[in-house]
């Protein structure tokens, strides 16, 4: 029998429902796994007392969709009374007096919080090594080299992949759920922009950020999304739409669906393994009864530059509030230092180099004289990218299939000292989805020659996550990915 902490959410839910296991047993199994996994650098603030308290409450009764299910939460979410510092030194000691809407909904659905998960500082990165806590290490290895779990939700991905929790919360601004999911062999979904409330999630780039589920399979993502989603009057950009039963949409029947293969995603230098996986994905969906067609998203090449203007622009403004005045860390000041020195010293020592780089880029592209050339042009590109997708969907395409990442997990440290643009290229297949506000999901679909997991991405129509999840479910069944990392930690 599967160890408790290795169960899927659906299986655990059913076992709990039948009284075969208790949430306390399930939670204790996860806490033990967490305790034994410090080498992964996934959990950065552990909340065992709260977890057991919630587990006991779940065992006492209740009817929530996630009753008794232990989850991990990305450090970007504000969790009441629990350290929430977006992996940044500048938020050292910050314990919010409020709970983010998404996590509040999880607890209301009966979920159990195991703790907070590692990430890139302020979600800026693709390797979970830019944060104050140090790097997260991928449970998967090829030889002895420590690999990245991806980023920025690398802690969430590693925790799910290493069976430390049944599911985890991530956020995705340019691929931060899908890329780490792909690199760790799990399933991760970015819902349509506006599907989940952003209230209480530390903002990176407000027009792109979206919370999403990371779990072992598509069904678990559907269950989690159902609990997370919904209109929030506290977030003006959350959409007032009914939340359908996503799990009920999982029939696996995609006969008659049309899947688009965008030719612009075939980039130069794409590894053979990725290309082969993409072709297999295409065949699997065709075998399942879908019609697979080539489509064009002509402005794709401009997506990455536009993203790296818009996201830093918004971030430079969103991160202005971290000034050492009201909360978090304030630099020690010298005699005679004034307010300017307080800002400069606090922000210089509080932010890491990647965050500082993006604040400077964002400040530059918004400044007088450059605004039109960069920010406004990027916004126009964004409109064109959105239109590309609208046109493809208008042609009757139901979902678009692409690789999730241009490579398998890379060694830790390999991008830290490299040209930052190398790191940014990790987002090449995922940023378009954020720019267009669409739902996207990464499904583990194969392994490379070294045995490392690879993911395929499906992109759906806005607010049709049910349909997208069902297509992903069909792909998952066809791919039959069951590999697990060998435990080394």
């Amino acid at each position: 029998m599967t160890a408790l902490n290795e169960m899927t959410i659906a299986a655990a839910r059913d076992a709990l429902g039948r009284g075969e296991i208790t949430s306390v047993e399930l939670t204790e199994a996860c806490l033990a796994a967490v305790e034994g996994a410090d080498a992964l650098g996934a959990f950065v603030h552990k909340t065992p007392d709260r977890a057991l308290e919630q587990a006991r409450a779940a065992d006492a009764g209740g009817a929530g969709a996630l009753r008794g299910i232990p989850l991990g939460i990305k450090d970007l979410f504000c969790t009441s009374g629990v350290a929430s510092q977006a992996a940044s030194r500048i938020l050292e000691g910050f314990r919010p007096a409020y709970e983010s809407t998404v996590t509040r909904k999880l607890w209301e659905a009966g979920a159990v919080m195991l703790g907070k998960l590692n990430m890139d500082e302020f979600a800026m990165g693709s390797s979970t090594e830019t944060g104050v806590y140090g790097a997260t290490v991928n449970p998967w290895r090829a030889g002895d080299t420590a690999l990245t779990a991806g980023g920025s939700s690398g802690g969430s991905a590693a925790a799910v992949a290493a069976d430390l929790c049944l599911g985890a919360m991530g956020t995705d601004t340019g691929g931060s759920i899908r890329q780490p999911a792909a690199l760790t062999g799990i399933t991760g979904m970015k819902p349509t922009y506006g599907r989940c409330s952003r209230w209480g999630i530390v903002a990176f780039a407000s027009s792109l950020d979206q919370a999403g589920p990371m779990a072992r399979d598509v069904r678990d993502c559907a269950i989690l999304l159902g609990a997370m989603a919904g209109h929030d009057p506290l977030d003006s950009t959350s959409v007032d739409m009914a939340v359908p039963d996503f799990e009920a949409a999982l029939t696996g029947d995609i006969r008659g669906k049309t899947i688009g293969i965008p030719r612009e995603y075939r980039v130069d230098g794409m590894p053979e393994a990725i290309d082969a996986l993409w072709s297999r994905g295409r065949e699997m969906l065709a075998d399942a009864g879908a019609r697979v067609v080539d489509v064009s998203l002509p402005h794709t090449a401009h997506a990455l530059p536009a993203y790296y203007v818009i996201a830093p622009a918004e971030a430079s403004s969103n991160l202005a509030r971290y000034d050492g005045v009201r909360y978090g860390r304030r630099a020690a000041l010298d005699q005679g230092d004034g307010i300017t020195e307080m800002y400069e010293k606090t922000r210089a020592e509080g932010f890491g180099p990647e965050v500082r780089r993006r604040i400077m880029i964002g400040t530059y592209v918004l400044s007088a004289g450059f605004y039109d050339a960069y920010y406004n042009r990027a916004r126009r590109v964004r409109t064109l990218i959105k239109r590309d997708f609208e046109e493809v969907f208008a042609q009757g395409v139901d979902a678009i299939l692409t690789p999730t990442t241009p490579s398998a997990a890379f060694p830790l440290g390999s991008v830290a000292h490299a040209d930052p643009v190398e790191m940014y290229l990790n987002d090449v297949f995922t940023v378009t989805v954020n720019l267009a506000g669409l739902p996207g999901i990464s499904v583990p679909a194969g392994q490379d020659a070294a045995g490392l997991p690879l993911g395929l991405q499906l992109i759906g129509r806005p607010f049709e996550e049910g349909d997208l999840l069902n297509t992903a479910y069909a792909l998952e069944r066809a791919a039959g990915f069951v590999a697990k990392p060998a435990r080394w930690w």
Partner: protein
Amino acid sequence: MLDLTYEPPAPKVIQGARDDWELVIGLEVHAQVASAAKLFSGASTLFGAEPNANVAFVDAGMPGMLPVINEGCVALAVKTGLGLKAAINLTSAFDRKNYFYPDLPQGYQISQLYHPIVGEGEVIVDMAPGIARRVRIERIHLEQDAGKSIHDMDPALSFVDLNRTGVALMEIVSRPDIRGPEEAAAYVLKLRQIMRYLGTCNGDMQNGNLRADVNVSVCRPGDYERYQESGDFAHLGTRCEIKNMNSTRFIQAAIEVEARRQIAILEDGGTVVQETRLFDPDKSETRSMRSKEEAHDYRYFPDPDLLPLEIEQAWVDDIATSLPELPDEKKARFVLDYGMTEYDADVLTAEVENAAYFEQVAQVSGDGKASANWVINELFGQLKKDDRDIGDSPLSAAQLGRIVALIRAGDISGKIAKDLFEIVYLEGGDPEAIVDERGMRQVTDTGAIEAAVDDVIAANPAQVEKARANPKLAGWFVGQVMKATGGKANPAAVNRIVQDRLGL
């Protein structure tokens, strides 16, 4: 048609050492929206609370907090726009204005740079009866106020009070249509009056409820007309902006001082530098805050936390139907309906509460003109002496109305009425009952007056002779009779009987 017609006032001319100069002035007025809650948070806007008592998480710029627009503030901005006969933009949007300061916790102010909620409108600024300036409004946008930094409580520390942070402001931007310091002050007061009528801003300038940034430039006579014809600002001088003034007295003084400073520079052959300046009322000078070269780059961009603000025409129409009568219309109606002077109408309509009080007096008394005199001369005089507002007048409009009605009916004389006014003002009570209880009713009984006249004539034969020779002296007899009757005799009746008995 109730509109009164006006002539524009002459522009103010300042004589420099060599030339005559004219002033060109435009104002940005920041008016605090009279809403109970802030623009993007539910926190209270109540003035005078303990420091940092009215602060929501979003006001304090806590991580992950998001703004949500307060519909009430939008409605009040729309109402203000309608009151200024301005175009309402059904789609507007919020932008972030980025800068660092401890009283700005988010590190940006949410404002409306690119798409304001209210477009072009106008204000008629009355300068004298028949003289008014039409000032065009360019736009009104909604924005957040900042908090307050306090630097003088401790030698080493600064303190921040965030109670005001996030309170809704309307920035009302005028065209450069104002041509003198007095006009600028009158413009601010007129805006204040209109917004107080509308109930959209309390206009309490002392508490920073209404503040103005004033743009001043000078030009030679004729240049302004050339600008008007061509629309080309090149005909006008370089302007300086004097920031953050909260008194009309200072506004006037600052404009005067700044204009003279610019004139002195220009006549010396120098050039005026476009910059932001502060007015120091103690030294009566303006000082540079920062020059354009070191000006902030605010990096405005659309706030991604807020969707464009879409409102419906039907909603605007609903607000339009709820609009009260505004000062210009009310004043015109007072002149035309009550036959009062424009001056009196100005006084009575200055504050909406005064106008309402007057109208009740006029309704109860049935005599508008007399009511206007009594309200302006007697009541306002007394209230001013007692340092009271109309709101806490001890004399109700109904009471004053009945006093005026008693005069109108001939029940009391004007002189007695003043006594009665004082009694009711000080002691309260029903005017009719007081008149009866204290025997103040005017004697209109001809028999009684005739007897009194006869008595006076009989007692003063020498005066009778003089009066017959010089009819102007008949007034002396009237006075004696009034004295004898304790002022209660109807003076008209006394006059008629005296004339009759003296055979004049």
